[in-house]
């Protein structure tokens, strides 16, 4: 069997992490290609339901990332987000959703290298954890993966 390649969805804010990820590319830093990035205006917009939807649709891991505290383009979006993450994470933990599979980070527009590190670290830790079969089973995610084409 081929080695398991984790599918990872990254929810990032437009102003910091997306720009940071851009920098990773323009700086020609090589990093794992398992991540599909979804860009949001602000981490404050990243609804927890979106994270659950990512798991429904077969994600094995999730990265949520935005501006460092005090750097939010809209002043406080990331502070609000942080509160929600704290509560959402505790609910996930309580209901047995694997919080090891949801990574949160602050990556600024200047931190191209950090973004590469976060992605690489996430990919390798998810690779170790294996596919998120628990959730896929509940979501009745088709066993044979659907290819888009």
């Amino acid at each position, binding site marked *: 069997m081929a080695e398991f390649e984790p599918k990872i969805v990254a929810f990032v804010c437009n102003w910091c992490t997306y720009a940071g990820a851009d920098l990773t590319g323009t700086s020609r830093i090589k990093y794992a290609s398992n991540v599909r990035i979804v860009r949001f205006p602000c981490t404050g917009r990243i609804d927890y339901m979106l994270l659950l939807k990512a798991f*429904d649709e*077969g994600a094995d891991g999730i990265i949520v990332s935005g501006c460092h505290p005090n750097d939010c383009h809209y002043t406080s979006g990331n502070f609000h987000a942080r509160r929600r993450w704290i509560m959402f994470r505790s609910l996930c933990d309580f209901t047995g959703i694997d919080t090891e599979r949801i990574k949160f980070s602050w990556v600024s527009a200047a931190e191209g290298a950090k973004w590469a590190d976060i992605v690489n670290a996430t990919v390798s830790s998810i690779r170790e954890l294996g596919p998120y079969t628990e959730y896929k089973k509940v979501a009745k995610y088709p066993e044979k993966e*659907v290819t888009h084409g």
Partner: protein
Amino acid sequence: MNIDKRLVRKDSLEKLFDILKRNSKTIYAPFTKNGKTTFRDTESFSGISTGYIQTSESSKDIAFPRAEKLLEYSKNKEGMTVKGIDINDIPEVILWGVRPCDAAGIGELSSIFNWDYKDEIFNNRLSRVTVFGFSCNKSDEYCFCTSVGGNPGNTAGSDILFTRMGDDGDYLAEVLTEKGLSVVSMATDLFEKSETSGKEKFLAEVQVRFNHEEIKERLSKYFESKEWVEQSMRCLGCGACAYVCPTCACFDIQDEAHGRKGSRVRCWDSCGFSHFTLHTSGHNPRDVQSARWRQRIMHKFSYMPERLSVYGCTGCGRCSRACPVDMNILEHLISIQEVTV
């Protein structure tokens, strides 16, 4: 078919269960958790609940599941493949411990699914269910089967009806259908020939509380009554009554997609929800709770008898037991009978 009466010793039920299991039968039986009794796929006889007046949920789930796949599709470069569910995949099931009011509900569901268009998915499910009815020897203030044409020892809908003769007695088994007979043939020794009759003295007493013909008659002139508003003021518009009901059959059809594959699913719905009849335009024909409550009663006691010649109620009283705000259907029906129009 003539009713075949047999005697089943009290300790033979477990043997029967084991024989059926050895014949790899799937058995759904009442199982209690969190103080509520529901039907579950059961592996061991000892887990089966007894002594319940009524299960919290009806057994309709077996023939009319809360969510069932109707078809599967997949999109590909060549176009689209759509496959209906294979009715041969529907498992054969024995429903163990069904109360007569639930068993009677099967007939009413069947009328809904077979008037005019025949719903073969439902029919195939039903044809694979063997119903072991258990007569009632206890009742409570919510029971009113005798007011809607049933009784605690009603045989309608059961394939075999077991009546316990006395608190710790043996069972009288009435074998009612071919399906019932085929079970008997698997365990002939356990179904002893019997001359026993007169099960009535072992049955619970359920008084007749209203006349359903009269209710039907009255409802036809009762549409505009203020009573609906008063009765439904405390109704919160959840679907508990409809979902525990053995005869409520309203459903929704939903698509569920994963990428380019997916399925179409039929799932329960309730006329009590405010969005049940809501049009996309925003227009809602039943936009207040009183209209929705009225629909529930009218549908069961007026529309169904007129259209399908059956009542949509078996008097199990579940809706009243399940209601979080004590909407008591029996009380309301009696008040409809008493109020002068």
